[in-house]
């Protein structure tokens, strides 16, 4: 194999590959990227056995072929090469090395045979549809903060993507929760997605997927089966196993009868929460909200460290209420609001609170209060 490729193109492809490979693994070949050159495209393939990413790029191919080489090392080399450099990759079949040449730099890297590289078995997808990148970006960006990191409830370690009935008919819905907060985000159901089985997309896959969604004009081809999910742009294909488990019935978690309504400027609210939370460095610091006629007092009281208080003008017309929340959780849901005011719906100081943006029901958040 011998190929010439522009540094920026190579960096992007290898960058994607190296973020998929596991830093610590016991199977040496899993640290490698599989480079295959044929026709006028080179594909870079990497896997951790749960996720596989294939990036196809154009290059000048002098001699087709394939080899595997450490993804991290290759990425480091390419990253350190000067911008605009032309990189030549040559696979010396006799030496078992891959040489990387650019200008006066010359590297020789150990390779492993391509036959040993595990390729994810292709599967039958029961549902195929296409969605604009900005739609998927919103679905996952607004829900991923609530993904759990707890090992016990492994089925919460991802975003539950499924078809549901929303306000105006069927929607494509993403839900994530860690038991303390929950995010439920809806988007219009793309054509062809009606029969999609609900799947839990693992956290790492959500992170990798995000890299495919930067460009507003891209259409993403989505394929879903009971066990796998695939997202593809014309260049990059990301295939991932889904979490084998059933997502809990989240609908009963979303409070229906919360009537005490608070409306507040989300950005102003977030800044105030951030300020008062400064006095306590604890992992789980509680911010107390004291609500009265069009007035909210935020306070933090940390016996060892100090106390803070701030008053905010809000729209609130119900009876007095005192309720405490984890400061981090409040900040995270407040920062999801970007267009209108944040609307909070409370019940009592012990019950889950609901938050949404204005009257928009397509993004709903639930957060559990803390005892204060």
């Amino acid at each position: 194999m011998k190929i010439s490729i522009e540094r920026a193109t190579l960096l992007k492809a290898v960058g994607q590959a190296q973020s998929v490979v596991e830093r610590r693994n016991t199977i040496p070949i899993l640290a490698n990227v599989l480079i295959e050159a044929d026709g006028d495209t080179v594909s870079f393939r990497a896997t951790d056995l749960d996720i596989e990413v294939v990036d196809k790029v154009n290059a000048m191919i002098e001699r087709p072929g394939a080899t595997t080489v450490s993804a991290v090392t290759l990425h480091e080399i390419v990253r350190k090469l000067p911008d605009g450099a032309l990189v030549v990759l040559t696979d010396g079949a006799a030496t078992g090395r891959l040489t990387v040449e650019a200008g006066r730099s010359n590297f020789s890297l150990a390779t492993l045979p391509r036959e040993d590289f595990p390729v994810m078995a292709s599967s039958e997808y029961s549902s195929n549809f296409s969605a604009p990148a900005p739609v998927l970006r919103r679905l996952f960006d607004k829900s991923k903060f609530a993904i759990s990191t707890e090992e016990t409830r492994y089925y919460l370690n991802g975003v539950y993507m499924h078809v549901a009935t929303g306000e105006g008919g069927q929607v494509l819905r993403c839900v994530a929760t860690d038991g303390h907060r929950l995010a439920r985000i809806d988007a219009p159901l793309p054509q062809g997605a009606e029969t999609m089985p609900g799947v839990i997309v693992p956290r790492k896959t959500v992170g990798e997927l995000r890299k495919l969604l930067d460009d507003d004009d891209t259409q993403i081809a989505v394929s879903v089966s009971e066990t796998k999910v695939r997202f593809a742009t014309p260049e990059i294909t990301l295939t991932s196993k889904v979490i084998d488990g059933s997502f809990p019935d989240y609908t009963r978690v979303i409070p229906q009868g919360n009537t005490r309504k608070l409306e507040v400027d989300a950005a102003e609210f977030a800044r105030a929460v951030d300020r008062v939370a400064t006095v306590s460095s604890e992992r789980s610091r509680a911010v107390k909200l004291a609500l009265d006629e069009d007035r909210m007092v935020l306070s933090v009281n940390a016996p060892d460290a100090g106390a803070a208080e701030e008053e905010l003008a809000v729209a609130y017309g119900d009876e007095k209420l005192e309720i405490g929340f984890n400061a981090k959780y409040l900040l995270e849901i407040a920062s999801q609001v970007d267009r209108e005011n944040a609307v909070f719906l409370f019940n009592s100081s012990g019950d889950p609170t609901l938050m949404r943006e204005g009257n928009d029901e397509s993004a709903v958040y639930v957060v559990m209060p803390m005892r204060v």
Partner: protein
Amino acid sequence: MPALCRDCLTEFESGARCPACRSPRVLSHPELFDLSIAHMDCDAFYASVEKRQNPELADKPVIIGGGRRGVVSTACYIARIKGVRSAMPMFQALKLCPEAVVIKPRGALYAQVSKQIRAMMDELTPVVEPLSLDEAFLDMTGTARLHGAPPAVMLARLVKRMQDELGLTGSIGLSHNKFLAKVASDLDKPRGFSVIGQAETEAFLAPKPVRLIWGVGAAGQAALEKAGIRTFGDLRRWDRTDLHARFGSMGDRLWHLARGQDRRRISAHAPIKSISHETTFFEDTANPDLLDGHIWRLSEKIADRAKARALAGRVIVLKLKRANHRLLTRRLSLREPTQLADRIYRTARELLDGVGDEGPYRLIGVGLADLSPADGADSSGDLLDPQARTRAAAERATDAIRARFGKDAIAKGRALR
């Protein structure tokens, strides 16, 4: 060479016998009066206390431990002659020494005696770090002027006082760091006093097996042996980076210990790192209901201790010992620290369900680790488990009832399993 008589505490310049009282119990070492890090270890503490309480036992082999199914917690020196060792299963100990008098441990009594010893140690230095009821580290640095005598003399006086006033003997290790002090105290037990000086450290360690290192058990020893490391001498030949590459952070520790270096400080207020309890069954069992009852009772004990000390932990540990003595441990990190028996129990139950082993087991243990102050623990509820709050409130109410009407005033049915 400076020398000290361990009987009359006379200091003199070397000699096989004390010039004052002619005692042969002479301690001499070039650095004797320069070292100040000590480890005191009582000799067969529980057994010695029992013998003191009941003089009839004085010349009989005594074993402290629980039941036929339990293990030996302490054996007196007479029983040790027969081969009985601590941690040995009781049936084996009784096979070796059938005439032994077996006594169930009386924790409260030992704790009371331990307090008396502690008071004596506190008179020597404010920096006493107890490791258990019967052993402690003492940092005597800078106390010579105060006492008008170097640490070695004061330590010899301490063990003499323990013997005169409490009727108990102890062994002292004196060196320049914790690791070596602990190694030294074990060198000529009972009634020992050993010194390891700076100058001889490396030569002393070189032929010693690596299992001297605290934390290197059977598994660690096997791993080291695989790398060709049996003795400290072997360890010395290893490069620091290689050790680190092979054994991780433990490698760094090994590298230092190989050179007799140990920079851990003696701390009088060592924080509690974990709380755990375990039970050895009368009969091996795989019965899930029985195990469930044990997990609940152990969880309650742990929660009681955590609550008493205002601590909460984030890691739950389940320990099972199979009938063939193979140990299984499983651990799980919670999102937030807890001190509630309910959460400890539920998490341990999940660990048991996922253990992937049929049993039978001879022992079960539950632990709470990664402890932090309880302030703010268990204050947020769980969206997916709406009952959790109610159960937590019920547990707090149970605690209040017990505080007022006694421990047995109220209990869960599960506790009777």
